[in-house]
Structures are given as C-alpha cells and as structure tokens.
C-alpha cells in the first residue's frame, strides 16, 4: 500500500484529528464515557494506521521498539507514583489525592487525571507492542 496516493493523503488528513481526539477522550473521562483506556487505544490506533499505510519501518522511526518497551513500565510507575506525594509531603497516607489542590473536588480531579495519564501511557504502548510483535513476524 506504500504507493497508494489516496490512502496516503487520506491518512495524513486523519492522523492529527485522531491524535487530538485522544486527549479529548482522556480529559472527558471523569464525567462522561472515556478515560485513559479508550484514549490510549485511540493513540495506538493512529500509530497502527500510520504503520499500515506507510510501512512498519516508517512507524518504527517515530515510535521505536526500544521507546515502546520502556514506556510500558513508565505508565505503571506514573500510576503508582500518583499516590506518593501525600506521603512525601507528610499530609496524608498513600493515595490521598487531597495534596493536589486546595479544594477537595479539584484535588481529586487532578488525582484521577494523573492516574489516567499512567493508564494512557501503558495502554497505548501495550497495543503498539502487540502490533509490532505480530507485524514483525516472518520479516527477518
């Protein structure tokens, strides 16, 4: 599909909107349907679309395998670290989101957002890792 003009131009038009839609779903997640899982899959879908149209090598130039492998545990660490500031500042116990702001509601919104950011990183990199594992087979 590397030389198909309509697919290439269409994909280039779609990609920015897909990548903008992912943060929208992410920030919308605490009140409506959405959140880190869906946004992570949408981000991964943008990269997978790029890989399918422009080839796997082109996709690995912008999202290298080594970076993806490192982002997998980074997401889990963000998820766990979201609970730590309460302990470090001595204002509460693990997962006390009250330290993120003066107002209870705002502080908890921030806490959820940081947890969801960890989810987004892990889910997006997991989907890409699975896709790379399948697409790479039999190429060597």
């Amino acid at each position, binding site marked *: 599909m590397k030389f198909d003009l309509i697919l290439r131009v269409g994909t280039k038009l779609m990609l920015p909107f897909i990548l903008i839609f992912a943060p929208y779903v992410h920030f919308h997640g605490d*009140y409506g349907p959405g959140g880190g899982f869906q946004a992570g899959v949408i981000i991964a879908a943008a990269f997978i679309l790029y890989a399918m149209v422009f080839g796997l090598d082109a996709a690995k130039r912008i999202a290298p395998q080594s970076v993806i492998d490192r982002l997998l545990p980074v997401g889990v660490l963000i998820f766990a670290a979201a609970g730590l500031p309460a302990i470090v500042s001595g204002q509460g116990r693990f997962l006390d989101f009250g330290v993120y702001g003066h107002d*209870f509601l705002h502080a*908890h919104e921030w806490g959820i957002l940081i947890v969801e950011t960890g989810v987004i990183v892990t889910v997006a990199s997991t989907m890409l890792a699975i896709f790379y*594992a399948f697409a790479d087979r039999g190429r060597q």
Partner: protein
Amino acid sequence: MTGWEVAADHYNYYVTIFLMVAGLYIVIARGNMIKKLVGLGLFQTSVYLLYLAPGRIIGGTAPIYDKNYEVYSNPLPHVLMLTAIVVGVATLAVGLALVVRISEEYGTIDEDEIFAKDEDQ
C-alpha cells in the same frame, strides 16, 4: 403492564441473547480460525451488554462527587466489564499469536485442512 409491554421493556436482553447465539454459532460453524476469534469477540460483547445494560440508570450520571446531581449509575458493573474488556484484549492477542504459529507450521488457518494434514502424517 401488559405482557407485550413487559416483553418490549426487556429488549436489551433480546439483543444480548442474539449476539451471544450469533457469536457461538460463528465459533462452531466456521472453520477459519480468525473468524472463530471474531465470533468469540462477539460472544464476549454480549456478556458486556448483559452486565452494562442493567447497571445504567436513566437520568443518572457518573458516580462523581457533585452537588448538581443526585442520581448515579452503579459503577460496579462498569468497572467489572472494564476488567473483562482488558482481559478480552489479552486473550484475543494470545489467540491471534496461536493462529500465527499454526499458519507458520501448517500453511493454512482452516480447521478442516489442518485436520486433513494431521491425518496424512
């Protein structure tokens, strides 16, 4: 309520049962292993629907602390199905990996052809 109204009120269960039976039929009737996995996915989706539909309250919002809202949907089935979706993705990846291996070994992903090749050996 008349019998018809009761029957029409439970239409989400008809959709659930239709999806479940359709998925099961695809798993049994199709020889192509990718199509079997699609059927399995359809079957899983029907289970999500079975749990999510009763958990939704009309007019209810997300279970977020907010003074403007008083009616909340039950978050428990949603969280349960979120876990089920994640597990579903993982099992689908494992199934696809098995299909890739079978395709490499046999040169086909059709069940009948694989059985025929096993008989020949």
